[in-house]
Every structure is written in structure tokens, then in C-alpha cells.
């Protein structure tokens, strides 16, 4: 019997928003993981932050914790510490985790908290109607930077892999099948898993054509050292690699804490 994963909530994303594709990929991944007996449905906790991405918790008929803006990550660690049988999945955005509360990502990576974080990265504040985020390109003309942003974006992969993340991957929202597969791999990882979902914002930063031409699934397995993984995550010329860049196993924060 297929799972009933939808709720009574009306979907309020812009028509055509890639968030809907991410939602489909998530539902399919949950169906697959629960269907094959890898996870019990009642043990999934889908956490979310605040931003367009965060609406996803209303649309998934699973346990959820919709946290404050930028404060999703510590809440996830709290859930996992309290009940290590739970699979703690977090949906966050580039504003929600890169602009506000970035320190929590770094520390969760450092302690290898057994949580699975997915950053819906559309390089813009969308729900607040189009301001530059910490990863908007320099020169980005948003509503708070009409003359173009004067700040450089930072590279989350360099930062989080240096901080100690034990899993790092990138996928593209437009590729539902690929995203579903990456979600399953990231969730299966034991320890802190970090996945960036590259996502155009069709209303405030329409990068559909830009990404469609540039993203590609890289061949080969993940690196086993962070420096190599950082290299794998970087653009190859104009091309943006998708796939798992890094996957190693280390003792998790929760298993050491509760030992």
C-alpha cells in the first residue's frame, strides 16, 4: 500500500517552483526507504527552518519540527540525542543556514552529529521577496542591494568539510530521480551529512537556464579525505559537479554522548 505522505495543507509555493520537485523527490525517497524496510515511517523526523523551503514540513505527513529561522540544526541535534532511534532529516535554505545561524552548521559538522541536512540553495532570500544571501554572487542586484551586492559569497563545501562533515553531496532540484537517489544516500550515511540542493528561484533569481547548462553528474566515488572532496565539489571550468564528494565513517556525537 502506498504511504499517505500528503497533508491537508495547501501548497503555496509559486507555480513551477523547484521546491515542488524537491518535495516529490523527498516523498519518493521516503516511500523507497520505508518500503524496503530501511527506516520505519514513525521514526522519521523531518525538521525545517524558515524560508520558502521550510513550508515543506507542512506538506509531508511525517513527524516534523519547524524550527526558528537559522536555528534548525541545534534542534535536530537535540532530537537525535533524545531518541537515537529517530532518523533526523533537516530541510534548510541558504538564508536559513548560511546567513543566519551558520555557526550551528559548523559545530554540528565538527561534532559529527548524526543528522542529515539538506540546504535548498537558491542563492537568494525568496520569502522576504528577494534580498542577497551569504551565497548570492557578488554584484547580485536584490531589493536590499539595488546597486549590486558588494560582498563575496563563501564556499559552504570548503567550510563544512574543513569543519569535519563526514558526508558532502550536491544535487540539482530539477533532477527528481537524481535528487531522490542522493537523499537516500545521504540519509543512509551514519554521521553528519551535508547535501546542497542547487535550486533556481523562478521569481527572484531565475537561474534555470544557467544551471541547466552547467550541472553534470560526476563519475567516480566519493573522496576519502576532505581536501580532495573540496576539489571534487568545485566547478570544473563553467561546469558544476553533482554527486557525493565525500563519505567517511567516524563515531557520532550522539553515540559517544549516550555511551
Amino acid at each position: 500500500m502506498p504511504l499517505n505522505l500528503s497533508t491537508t495543507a495547501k501548497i503555496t509555493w509559486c507555480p513551477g517552483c523547484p521546491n515542488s520537485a524537491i518535495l516529490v523527490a523527498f516523498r519518493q525517497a521516503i516511500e523507497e526507504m520505508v518500503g524496503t524496510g530501511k527506516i520505519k515511517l514513525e521514526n522519521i523526523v523531518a525538521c525545517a527552518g524558515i524560508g520558502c523551503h521550510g513550508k515543506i514540513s507542512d506538506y509531508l505527513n511525517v513527524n516534523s519540527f519547524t524550527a526558528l529561522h537559522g536555528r534548525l540544526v541545534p534542534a535536530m541535534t537535540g532530537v537525535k540525542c533524545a531518541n537515537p532511534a529517530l532518523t533526523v532529516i533537516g530541510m534548510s535554505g541558504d538564508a536559513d543556514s548560511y546567513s543566519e545561524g551558520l555557526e550551528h552548521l559548523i559545530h554540528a559538522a565538527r561534532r559529527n552529529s548524526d543528522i542529515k541536512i539538506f540546504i535548498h540553495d537558491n542563492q537568494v532570500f525568496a520569502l522576504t521577496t528577494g534580498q542577497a544571501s551569504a551565497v548570492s554572487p557578488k554584484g547580485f542586484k536584490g531589493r536590499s542591494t539595488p546597486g549590486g551586492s558588494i560582498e563575496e559569497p563563501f564556499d559552504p563545501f570548503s567550510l563544512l568539510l574543513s569543519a569535519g562533515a563526514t558526508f558532502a553531496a550536491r544535487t540539482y532540484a530539477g533532477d527528481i530521480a537524481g535528487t531522490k537517489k542522493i537523499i537516500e544516500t545521504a540519509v543512509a550515511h551514519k554521521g553528519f551529512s551535508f547535501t546542497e540542493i542547487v535550486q533556481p528561484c523562478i521569481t527572484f533569481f531565475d537561474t534555470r537556464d544557467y544551471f541547466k547548462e552547467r550541472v553534470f553528474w560526476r563519475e567516480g566515488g566519493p573522496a576519502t579525505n576532505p581536501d580532495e572532496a573540496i576539489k571534487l565539489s568545485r566547478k570544473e571550468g563553467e561546469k558544476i559537479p553533482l554527486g557525493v564528494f565525500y563519505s567517511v565513517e567516524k563515531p557520532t556525537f550522539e553515540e559517544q554522548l549516550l555511551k
Partner: protein
Amino acid sequence: MRKSHESVFTIGIGGAAGDGIRESGATMGTILADLGYEVFLSFDYPSLIRGGHNFARLSFSKEKMWCDHEALDVLIALNEETITLHRHELAHDSVVFADSFEPQDIEVLKGNAVTMPIAATVKEMNAPAITRNSMALGAVCYLLDLPFDSMQSLLGRVFKDKNPELNIKLADIGYQRMKGTGFRHTKKIHPAPEKKQLIDGNTAFAKGLMAAGLDFYVAYPMTPATSILTFFADRQKETGLRVIQPESELSVINMALGMSYAGKRVAIGTASGGFALMQEAFSCAGMAELPLVVAVSQRQAPATGLPTYSSQTDMRFVIHAGHGEFPRIVMAPGDSEEAFRAGVEALNLAWRYQIPVIVLLDKVISEHSATSLIKTEGIKIERGLISAKAGEKYGRYEITKDGISPMAFPGTPNTVVKVTSYEHDEAGITVDEPGPTKAMLSKRFAKSETLNKSLNHHETVKVHGDHSSGNVVVFWGSTKGPVLEAARYLKKPVKFVQIVWLEPFDAKRVAEELSGAKKVIDVECNHNGQLAALIREKTGIAVTDKILKYDSRPFEPIALAEEINDKL
């Protein structure tokens, strides 16, 4: 110097930070408590690790000591600065021990200056400098006419992990040396037969939480709340509870909310400044109805303020903490015994009502010790209303008459548990229409009504002293100590009204106690008279006589008694 009552004896021990003054005070206090004395031990220190002036002050008596007295009967000076700083606290018959004295000190102290080559003796024995305290301790034992033989086993127990033979030997040297000077025994106070535990408020509060079944304590270090964190950290193996020190106060409280959502009993603790960082998530606990206990220990603010000194300036801050309107409880224990009970009650009430509960402490409650009765037996653990019919129709925020929705936790088969920082419907799905918004806000405040109906089951207000007196002194928190100590020195009978619950405020009870009074005097350690204003707001009673202290130090009981007497 204002004299304390004959039956009170006060010892001061002063030296540099790192001299072990705190330990020395604690050792002496423990020994006196073991002998059956009522003891109050304060510790005064600046925010630094080495150097600076540290001072432990012990007042003891056979009757309850509510706080320490300024007037010293004995001063143990491990450095010259101690004499300079505390000379004005000495009475004509006070005894001062020091390695050596400056001529001007001898002139003032005369025969009461007792030279004890403490540093030289310790050096001779190749003992660490910190053991100087043991020698002084022995000398004090002689002064108090405590037979050294009977002290020995006590010392052995107190020093059991700290080289007992060496410490006992040094104490004996101190005792014999004092005896050899032919110095008189000073006044003798017979202890009461009942023995109590010398305990500080942070430890008592932590024991209360533990007795009420705490699973996790999460905190970022900040004086004066830090010792709760270290107390639990040392007890993880024996208790099974776990301690986490995350990257910031913001992480602390959000992590705690995640734990609470998953069904674990969690408490967090910080000073007022740390709590300021937690405001948004504190509000989230209210919105998402996640049970949470927060210990807030006040220092002298604003901003970084005086990290190791005290105030009562954050009452207004915590009763209004967090944006938006939502029910919470704020209780302000006035001593270690009340701090223990607050730990128990806070955790149980947080889970009964699914609300955040603040226990408002301050440096004095947190770090000063008093002989107390702490009974850990027979504590009831209330886990709150757990859903019996969780299943496909389960809604975490089911609207009920008393506002309390049955709880289920993630991991329950066929049950979806959704919590959120957004306004939401019964299933935990975001809403933004006025009808459901009002319905859910009303549901949360229905819990307030339920709680308000049960206020008479709680010690929201305590009355001490002469219940029939028309003269009333009203106070809250750690001011209880100096107020009740001052009570012994008042010229007229007085009723003392202690407000323990600041939110919800038991207006009916407070009005009953204050209305009809001839005179009401408000005593607080803040500039604005926050309690007086709160009483007026909640009861309409204007309390215009105020004794306010806002220099970061607690009231001194004899000085406070004089101020109250002036107003009576």
C-alpha cells in the same frame, strides 16, 4: 562596627585568588555544620583566576542563619591586603591571624593580633600553599574551644581526597600554636543536636531537577550559573543524565527544544545575559508548547555588568521574556531549600502544563551556602498528559477544555507529531487565518486559567514573622536572607511577605497579605523597585516605602535592620 547578636559568630578568610579561600570556607563550614551549627557561607571574588582579593565569610549560630554578617569575630588574613580591606569590620575583641602585621595594624588590634607563621610552616613542611588554610582552621578550632581529638575524624572525612594526613597535621600545628600563645578561648556557642547539610543554591536546585527525573542538562558556561553545569557534568555516570555544552546560548535552548519535542526532560541554565540571547527560542517554547526549565541566575547588569556580583534587576525581564504572549511560570526561590523545591516543581509543572518555567536565581542564591534540609525521598515525578489514543487522527495541539493537549512523541507507530514555531492548527500545520489563530492562542491561555485555578496548591507567597502585625516588609528572592536575619534586630513586630511566584502573580493572596497594613516597606536589590511596581500593577496597592540597594552587593542584615527601624 555594628555588632551582631551575641549568639552569632562570624569568621572571615581572605587571600588572593588561587589561595583556596573558597575551599577553606567550605571546609570550615562543613565542619561547623557537622557539629550541628547553623551556618551561612558567602564567597566574594572578582572575575579573574589568579591574584585579586577573595573572601569567604562564615556566620554561624545555634539558630537558623539566614545570611552572613559583616561584623567579624575572627579574621584569617593570608595576605596583608585582607587586613586593610576588612579592618573596619572588626570589633574591639575580634581576633586576627596573619603571618605578620604592619605596625599600624598592631596599634589598632593590640593583643588581638595573633602572629602565626603560617606561610613559613607550610614551606618548612614542603606542603602546597593551599594547605595554609588547614593551619588556620586548627587555630580557629582552639578559639571556639572545640577539642582537637574529636575534630580529627571530621577533618579526615572532609579532606579524604586531599591528603588527609598532611592537612590534619597542619591543623594540629595551628591548634597547638594557638594554645601555646595562652590566648583566651573566645565565646562558645553550643550547637543544636540536629545536623543539616551545608549547600549552595545552584547545587540544591540541581538536586531538585535530578530528583524530578531530569534527562539532559544543556548549558553554555556563564557565572553565576556555571556550577549547575559542572555539578551535572560530574554526575553523568552515576545518574545516567547527560550534559551538553554547545557553541552558544542560542544553540543551548534550540537543542533543548528538540529534546523536549522527542520526549526528554531537559533543563538549561545561564546568567541574565545568556538568557537575553535565548529570547526568540524561549518564545518558541511557548508557541510550540514544549516543556522546558530555564535557570536564570542574575548578576549585576546591564550588559556584561559585574560577572561575579549580584542583583535583583531581571525580574521584569524574565516575566516578560520572549516576544508575543504565552503562558509561563517564573519562580524566585529565596534560599537553598527553596531552590531545591523549585528544581522539582519547575520540571513537573513544565511537563504538566507544557510551558517554559523559569527559576530566577542570583549570585547570592547560586553560590552562597546555608545549612539546609534537603529531602530527596518521596519526590513525585509528573510526566504530564500522555496521549492514550495516538494514531492516525492524532493532533499534537488538540483543543481541550483545560488547554492541555495530550502529548505524543516521534517514534510512536501510526502517529504523526508535528510541532512548529508558526501559528498552527490542531495537527500542527501552519495557519494564518484569524479564526484558527485566535482559537489556538486561546487554547494556550486556557492552560493559564487552569494554572491560575490551582495557585492555592503552590507556595506562591510565604509569610514569615508576626502574621498579625500591621507593619509589613515585602521582598522576593535572595533578599529573604538579609530580611529574615534583620528580623532579629527590629524594634517592632513585623510581618514579612515573600513573593515566590512572580508569574503568574498570585494577586489575590498578595492583596490579602498587604491590604489593611499600616505600613508596607519594599526591600529589593535594584534601582527601580521592580517588585513594588509589579504589586501595584497586579493589585492596585501602592507600596511607596522602599529600601533599594543597587551597588551589586547584597544587604547586610544589621545595616538593613537599622534602615527598617528608621521607617517603622
